[in-house]
């Protein structure tokens, strides 16, 4: 029995057994199409469809939205989503394609939308029938998120939206978007409001989605242009002018510090990339044993050995920090560890991928389009993609400001 299992309540233990049994019989197995490293890299409609089928089946089995109320499409349980996540990851399932919907839109809608809107939107979000994207960043509002220029103007009972969103992952597949925009030019923070808006159904009717190509060569994110998009007032979340407060709910969940546990599956490895263990410092040991640097086995290089151990220690420290969050007596400040999550996780992944790159020596020049590339070139790809997450969700420089100000009580930086 694992550590987590010992702590289960009877309800949770029963639910865990259900998850284990269902997963044993319903793991979708190796996919018929190529699945990228994460949902944000999805560009092939066939891959999306395969993953949507998986998400729908996991939802139907009750492994998604477990802690949401029954009225909003959940199971009405307590503390069970974390159990489903543990079991799915133990079973090395595919990830869920509706990652922004599950991780950011769902909790925001749950905490801030009208009851009828929750009941309308959440079941299809949780099942993956509807894919969601996030309309926060703009050309002039990146780290300075409150500098929103997209404007929603009230006309009668509806809102008319004009503006330009960028770096919008999954917008090319998205049915819905969570949208932060300006409703007043008088106040930077209190002039913001928050909406959910339809995308797919309104393309050509006020919505344009153009793909942006990432430095890796992959698609996955987009720019979204609004020209007189008309949105019903019921799709406004919380009060007019309360957009910043609502956005904080989204960001808290995005950074792993929210009240609801995000449904998260994953761990499946494509046959061709087996053994790569992207993102795990432990896998650097095997990589070093198989790789040559400067004509010698990388695993015999003292500097490489030291660096691998350093990252394995960071990884263990990160895991133990997550464990310590759950022990109230060992946290003098309740937000000190939760607010570190995004910063530490993303820099660690970046450094692991960078070290993998060093370990590969001359072979690190090879990319995914070369048969000889170690582990299908996935470490190289992971290193380049790692900048997506050190920049997104508030660049890590902003995260350091937040920690310095909210936890260490230092004065606010401009």
């Amino acid at each position, binding site marked *: *029995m*694992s*550590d*987590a299992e*010992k*702590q289960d309540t009877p309800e949770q233990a029963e639910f865990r057994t259900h998850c284990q049994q269902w997963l044993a019989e319903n793991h979708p197995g190796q996919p018929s199409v190529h699945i990228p490293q994460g949902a944000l890299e999805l560009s092939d409609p066939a891959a999306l469809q395969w993953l949507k089928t998986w998400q729908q089946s996991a939802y139907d089995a009750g492994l998604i939205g477990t802690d949401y109320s029954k009225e909003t499409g959940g199971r009405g349980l307590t503390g069970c989503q974390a159990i489903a996540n543990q079991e799915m990851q133990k079973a090395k399932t595919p990830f869920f394609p509706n990652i922004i919907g599950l991780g950011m839109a769902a909790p925001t809608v749950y905490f801030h939308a009208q009851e009828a809107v929750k009941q309308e939107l959440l079941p299809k979000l949780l099942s993956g029938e509807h894919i969601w994207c996030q309309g926060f960043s703009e050309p002039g509002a990146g780290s300075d998120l409150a500098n929103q220029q997209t404007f929603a103007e009230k006309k009668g009972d509806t809102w008319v939206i004009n503006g330009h969103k960028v770096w919008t992952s999954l917008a090319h597949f998205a049915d819905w978007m969570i949208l932060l925009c300006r409703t007043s030019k008088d106040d930077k923070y209190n002039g913001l409001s928050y909406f959910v808006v339809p995308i797919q159904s309104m393309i050509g009717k006020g919505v344009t989605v153009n793909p942006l190509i990432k430095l890796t060569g992959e698609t996955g994110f987009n720019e979204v242009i609004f020209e007189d998009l008309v949105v019903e007032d019921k799709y406004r979340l919380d009060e007019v002018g309360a957009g910043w407060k609502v956005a904080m709910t989204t960001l808290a969940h995005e950074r792993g510090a929210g009240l609801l546990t995000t449904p998260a599956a994953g761990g499946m490895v494509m046959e061709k990339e087996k053994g790569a263990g992207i993102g795990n410092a432990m896998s650097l*040991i095997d990589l*070093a*044993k198989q790789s040559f640097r400067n004509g010698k*086995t990388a*695993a*015999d*290089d*003292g500097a490489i*050995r*030291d660096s*691998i*151990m*350093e990252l*394995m*220690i*960071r990884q*263990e*420290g*990160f895991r*133990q*920090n997550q*464990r*310590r969050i*759950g*022990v109230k*007596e*060992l946290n003098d400040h309740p937000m*000190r*560890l939760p607010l*570190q999550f995004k*910063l*530490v996780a993303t820099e660690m992944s970046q450094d692991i991928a960078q070290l993998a790159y060093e370990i590969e020596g001359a072979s690190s020049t090879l990319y995914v389009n070369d048969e000889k590339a170690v582990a299908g070139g996935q470490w190289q790809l992971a290193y380049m993609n790692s900048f997506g997450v050190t920049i997104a969700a508030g660049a890590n*420089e902003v995260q*350091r*400001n937040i*920690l*310095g*100000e909210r*936890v*260490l*009580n*230092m*004065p*606010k*930086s*401009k």
Partner: protein
Amino acid sequence: MTQPKNFGFGEDETMLRDSARKFFADNCSADKIHSQVAHNYDIYRDIESIWDKNLWSQICELGWTAACVPEEAGGIGMPVVAAVALAEEAGKAAFPSPLISTFNATFALRACKSDAATKVLGDIATGTSATLAMTNQKGSWEAQDTDVTVTDGKLSGTAWFVQDAKKVERFVVSASTDKGVGLYVVDPSAAGVQIIADGIIDLTRDQAHIVFNNVEAIEVAAPGTGDKALAEALPAILCIISADIVGSGEWLLQTTTDYATVRVQFDHPLGFFQAVKHPLVNVMLAVDQTKSLVYNAACAIDNEPEQAERLARMAKSSASDMAVFSSSRSVQFHGGIGFTWECFIHIFFKRQMHNHVLYGDAKYQRAKLADMLMGKAA
């Protein structure tokens, strides 16, 4: 075996930690420690061991030395995290005492599993202090390396880098025979013992090399078993030192962020500037990573001992790096005042410099880990 979710911090352990926190807040403010140990700035001053024996007696009465002595030896039998919690609070106060050394000796004696060792543990539980004398002149932290030998049951040779040697009432000495290394308990006042104090940087400790000349000793681990006992105790020792580093690191972090909030330059408090703010956040990340690793390793000793050495070496590697980082940033961000003798920072700075190398620095721990996890390099 698996670990409890709360790292073994039950009600008793938390209560003990909170009482230690209060004890140090009441008795060991930084200015008090400073006026006590830093009264003489002369760089060539005479070597002295400064500490408050009265406070030590109070601690012994509170039962701290008994915390991790097994019940059958007359102690309380608490898990390793209890000692870790106390060491962390002692580090936060830069407390000059033989507490850390006595804990280390306690875990070595526990690993001996002999009647003679149990008897010494009983003395520790009632307040007898002790330290390990296990390092050779070349500064090896390996359990089998010692410059002390045993002939006809008597010790000869020199033990080096012995912590708190001038304070303690017992030495636990590793010594070699032709049948391997054994462990021996020696009274500092025994005939033939000469304690030669080292001049050290850390003002809150003393250190010495101890010359043994045909000294009577009590055998607590027979030849051939002493190095194994030390190896078994090593994870706990690494956790105790690392916990001291965590406590000192937290003090340095809080003191420096407080200073960055009040000291104004260019019309702003220092913490307004990201060149100061961001590295201090990095210090916090390093402290938290180390703290969680230490609790995890300490918990493993009691619950999954087969993982203990790996996890404790991880903790000490993280701690040693953080010791240097937290103290260097603290001096730097205090600016000119941080570079002076009158500022309290140097007390903790020097304790961290000393701590970082005890029982092996970060690079040493990682080299040992790499050998464990990757096999030896060709």
